[in-house]
């Protein structure tokens, strides 16, 4: 495999006066050229720290990382010609500049000749539906438009490796779809281009990525194609149960024989439990616990596994629980 990104025992510790926080704890990764590689995990898992190290913004505490064959610590100047980074959920930009001016300025920071850069910017603005906003000031853009502009900034120079850190976070459904579509289209133009994407949206990783690494508490707990990861829970029965609010049940459900994993998320006043059962027979024990709790069953479905289920099986808890600590 032609390697685009490789990390070896990569470790990053943030030190404050009172404590040490291990953000990355011995991460080993090999990402092939031409891959759309997803780094999936809850907030605080270490995804953004990994990206920051790979784009030369942050030094690792120990271990090594190579991007396009270059050491991120010692060969960062050469490396910066070959990469670009786009982060999501940020209200950033030189607000007084027009959209096309800010994009042009960044093309100049990458050394592009001015006229080809302007043509490229016009083309990308058109593709992402931002042509009408080209002369608007950055400060006047909606968050969706601003994120599309940021994506264009990353694409103008056709980097060999594009890093996308939560590119669709806080976007509406339409804008998120446009961003994903553009990433796919950009990748399809040249098979040697590589995208490293961090996300905590399971669906996004499933839909967009050729391979995914699941990260939790600074460690990679599994990696493979989305279908390989889902196969890890293929032998399990996946059951969703919606219950009315009531006393805490999660720990009791996890104790039931045959329950391989369980998670819960509250939505619209309903607790939505996801259970990984080693066999359908375990459902009897689950129902006894539910009935004993006095909580009303609002819905119950058996379904195909998702990456979220794989995460629950690997980590033992749901992503939302991990984010809450």
């Amino acid at each position, binding site marked *: 495999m032609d390697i685009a990104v490789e990390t070896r025992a990569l470790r990053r510790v943030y030190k404050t006066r009172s404590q040490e926080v291990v953000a990355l704890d011995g991460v080993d990764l090999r990402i092939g050229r031409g891959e759309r590689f997803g780094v999936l995990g809850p907030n605080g898992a270490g995804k953004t720290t990994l990206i920051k190290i790979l*784009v030369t913004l942050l030094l690792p505490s120990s271990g090594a990382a190579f991007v396009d064959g270059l050491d991120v610590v010692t060969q960062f100047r050469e490396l910066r010609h070959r990469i670009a980074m786009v982060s999501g959920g940020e209200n*950033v930009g*030189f607000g007084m500049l027009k959209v096309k001016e800010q994009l042009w300025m960044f093309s100049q920071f990458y*050394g592009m000749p001015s006229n080809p850069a302007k043509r490229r910017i016009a083309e990308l603005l058109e593709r992402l539906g931002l042509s009408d906003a080209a002369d608007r000031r950055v400060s006047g853009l909606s968050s969706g438009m601003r994120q599309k502009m940021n994506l264009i900034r990353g694409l103008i120079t056709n980097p060999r490796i594009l890093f996308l850190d939560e590119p669709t976070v806080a976007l509406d459904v339409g804008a998120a779809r446009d961003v994903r579509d553009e990433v796919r289209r950009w990748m399809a133009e040249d098979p040697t281009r590589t995208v490293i994407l961090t996300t905590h949206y399971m669906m996004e990783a499933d839909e967009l990525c050729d391979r995914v690494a699941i990260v939790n508490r600074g460690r990679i707990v599994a990696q493979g194609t989305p279908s390989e990861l889902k196969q890890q829970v293929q032998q399990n029965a996946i059951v969703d149960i919606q219950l009315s609010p009531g006393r805490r049940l999660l720990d009791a459900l996890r104790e039931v024989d045959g329950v391989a994993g369980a998670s819960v998320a509250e939505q619209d006043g309903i607790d939505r439990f996801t259970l990984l059962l080693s066999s359908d027979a375990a459902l009897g024990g689950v129902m006894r616990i539910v009935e004993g709790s006095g909580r009303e069953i609002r819905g119950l479905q058996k379904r195909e596994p998702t990456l979220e289920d794989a995460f629950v099986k690997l980590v033992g808890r749901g992503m939302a629980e991990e984010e809450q600590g």
Partner: protein
Amino acid sequence: MIATIAQWRGFKAATWLGWEISSNWTRPLMFLIYSVLRPISAAFILVVMYRVISGRAPGTTDYLAFLVSGVAFWSFVQYGFAGLSNGMAEDRGEYRMLKYVYTSPVDFYLYLFGRGLAQLASAVASALIVLVVATIALSLPIDPLRVNYPLLVVGSVLALAAVIGMAMAYGFLQLQAVDAHGYGELGASVLYVISGAIFPITVLPGILATIASLSPLVYWMELIRRSLLGSHAIRMFPTLSDADVLLRLVVTTVATLLLAHLVFSWADRRARRRGLIDMESNW
């Protein structure tokens, strides 16, 4: 060659950005009026204070020329130093774009220099405006035909290099702080006190006078006055010839640039080690 052209493009874009940031908060006419009035007001406040205190006593014109020439050229340091050093903190705290600029291929020195160049250009205009207006209004002994221009230009270029070096290093040091607002002006004010801009450094307390004598800005101020005012210049270093003062300016400038490079490199490495480039900060 290609790499040089690419860096040149980045430098030009950074210069354009600096100009947009410093000028586009108002209409062009208002900006022009502001640019003219600001330095003149600052200079004339000092002149009026001096006039009130000296009471138009005879023999005060030479000191008035000392004061005005120092204040006029001080704008180089004030705008240049604060403009350059604030750029980084502003890009991080206000625009939150520093991480994207930092991880782009443009040389960070060049970017910062370009980003602050608009302020330096304003400073040149400011110095000229103050000198012309003050010379006419206060009848200062400045004869444009008798100015030692080579000395003035060489001294100013060296001092400018020193100011840029100091400002870049100081700017990176500012990134270590979460609350970085106003530190640029603070640094410029400290330099103001020890540069001989408004009074000779000999009136400073011992340790400050020693520190001031290690700064290239003092020798620059001395050369400016000698080149502009000739025999009317009040000399801070009466025993030194013009060549001696220039030599001291060269030596202190080289030392300042070396020190600034070391500080810049150390602070850059520390910023990457501690994740300061994209740290949430108050601006």
